[in-house]
């Protein structure tokens, strides 16, 4: 053995001898002490069943983060889902603590009334001595004392409890939350998305990736453009990260009217089936494309009205007038050809002499144009 390694080994032994003399455990003894191998039977007994806290979205014993833009309805839908489960007696409301740190006084009162009606605990900052900074301390204490098991904490919104933009803060919050979850607790965090959407037009979570990475499950709520009626909004929960049997997508609608109570707003929430949300989405896409093509449609309509009806002449004329590339005009000309105005068609085509395409405007389009003028 080399002299230096002998020296090292001797000094390590001295540390361990000192620890023994002081009645302390050595590092290896501590590792053995912490080993849970052999305790699986006991742990299995404590294991929580796969019970949903929020149907299809959040499971008991997991950390779920729900991201949405402001005014998308994350609080509303979380409360509605909670209500569904509480009123069907799937969940013990005495173990549910909704920390409402994102509301005004009226909102706190309205939501507390709902909490009393459905049976769960509402906690609000500056009421009964509670402050948001206490929540992490309480989570640590719950984990350490073994009281975390079965406790469900809902944080609305997460940015009131940690700085999502600050990597170290978000990471520390993640460590505390994980210890709470490991001890049998359940955490549901509501957080905001970025103002800017991704290339596909979908919302993206706000802040560093730590919260999303540390969560067991993450959902992003997006509003489905178009809606059902004017005052009715449709939203879709899209799963971004999953651990457990949660849904990939779940959709809801709610109607917001001026002067309505929060209770009425909650009662307006409805689950949307795949068929309905599919139709809503295709309607929204239809409307978006129609809006996008509006300028080109108007220019083509003007050409046909003045007697330029052949395909080549329309393309030539519209291109000169608007500067739009000819291939785009040709594509729109084909896309908007048909007999059903309600399905997006704006003109029909007939084949004349020498195989020449003759375009004519659909009557509802002429009427709509006249109405606009």
């Amino acid at each position, binding site marked *: 053995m080399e002299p230096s390694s002998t020296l090292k080994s001797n000094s390590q032994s001295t540390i361990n001898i000192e620890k023994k003399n002081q009645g302390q455990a050595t590092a290896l003894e501590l590792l053995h002490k912490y080993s849970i191998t052999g305790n699986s039977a006991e742990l299995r007994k404590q294991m929580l069943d796969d019970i949903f806290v929020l149907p299809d979205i959040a499971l008991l014993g997991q950390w779920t983060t729900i991201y949405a833009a402001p005014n998308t309805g994350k609080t509303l839908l979380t409360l509605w889902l909670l209500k569904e489960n509480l009123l069907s*007696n799937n969940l013990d409301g*005495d173990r549910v603590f909704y920390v409402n740190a994102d509301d005004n006084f009226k909102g706190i009162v309205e939501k507390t009334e709902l909490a009393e009606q459905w049976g769960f605990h509402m906690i609000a900052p500056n009421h009964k001595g509670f402050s948001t900074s206490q929540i992490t301390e309480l989570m640590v204490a719950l984990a350490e004392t073994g009281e975390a098991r079965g406790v469900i904490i809902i944080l609305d919104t997460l940015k009131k409890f940690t700085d999502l933009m600050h990597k170290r803060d978000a990471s520390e919050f993640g460590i505390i939350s994980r210890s709470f979850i490991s001890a049998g607790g359940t955490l549901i965090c509501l957080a905001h998305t970025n103002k800017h959407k991704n290339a596909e037009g979908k919302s993206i979570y706000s802040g560093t990736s730590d919260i999303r990475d540390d969560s067991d499950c993450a959902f992003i709520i997006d509003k489905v453009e178009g809606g059902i009626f004017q005052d009715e909004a449709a939203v879709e929960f899209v799963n971004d990260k999953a651990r457990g049997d949660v849904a990939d997508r779940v959709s809801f609608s709610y109607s917001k009217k001026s002067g309505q109570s929060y209770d009425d707003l909650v009662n307006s929430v409805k689950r949307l089936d795949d068929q309905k949300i599919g139709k809503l989405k295709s309607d929204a896409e239809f409307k978006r494309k129609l809006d996008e093509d509006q300028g080109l449609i108007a220019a083509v309509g003007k050409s046909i009205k003045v007697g330029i009806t052949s395909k080549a002449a329309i393309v030539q004329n519209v291109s000169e007038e608007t500067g739009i590339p000819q291939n785009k005009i040709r594509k729109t000309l084909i896309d908007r050809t048909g007999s059903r105005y309600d399905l997006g068609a704006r003109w029909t085509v007939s084949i004349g002499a020498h195989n020449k395409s003759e375009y004519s405007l659909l009557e509802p389009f002429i009427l709509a144009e006249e109405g606009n003028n």
Partner: protein
Amino acid sequence: MRNLSYVPGVDTEFCEDRTSYKASRIDYNPLSDESIARYRRLKLFESASRLVEETRIPSFRHCEIFEKITHGYDHESSWWLVFDNFRVPFYMMEPYGQYEFEIDGLEYHEVPKNIAPYGGVNRFIKGDRKEPDTTSYLFVKTAHYRHLVDVTRRLEATAMSAPYFKSVTAKDRREAKRRVRAEKGSILFGGFYGT
């Protein structure tokens, strides 16, 4: 808020068995009219409320209720309303007289007099009475108030068709004898101080 007397992780829940409501308040003299009527009321209370008695102590969930109550302790018993995924703790006290409670975090309802299990009569007050001298109060935590309302609704519906609290028919007496014969060996006559 007062701290709870138990320490989770240190104290062991359900480590001791206590006698049941029936064993401590009926079986001491099971063939007396008082006990026969009490047994009938207890069974009515159990079936109408769908509550299941907890005889083990300490029950931490029940501690969370009774340690908040400041007065009116008498003839206490612990109960559960059992669901698939969880149990709701109910705590019953049946003191002599009437009490008012205003306790933060708790809600209570009175059990209809004619199916209130204890139905005690104060022997120092002579004369017959329409109602017992004890009042049975069912307590739950505020978050469980919805369940208390459901239980009370069921109890009130049953109470409408239930007889006078002291009612004992010849059939009840015959059934009591049959029951005592069947339970021979498990009944401790004379209660805690009996033989």
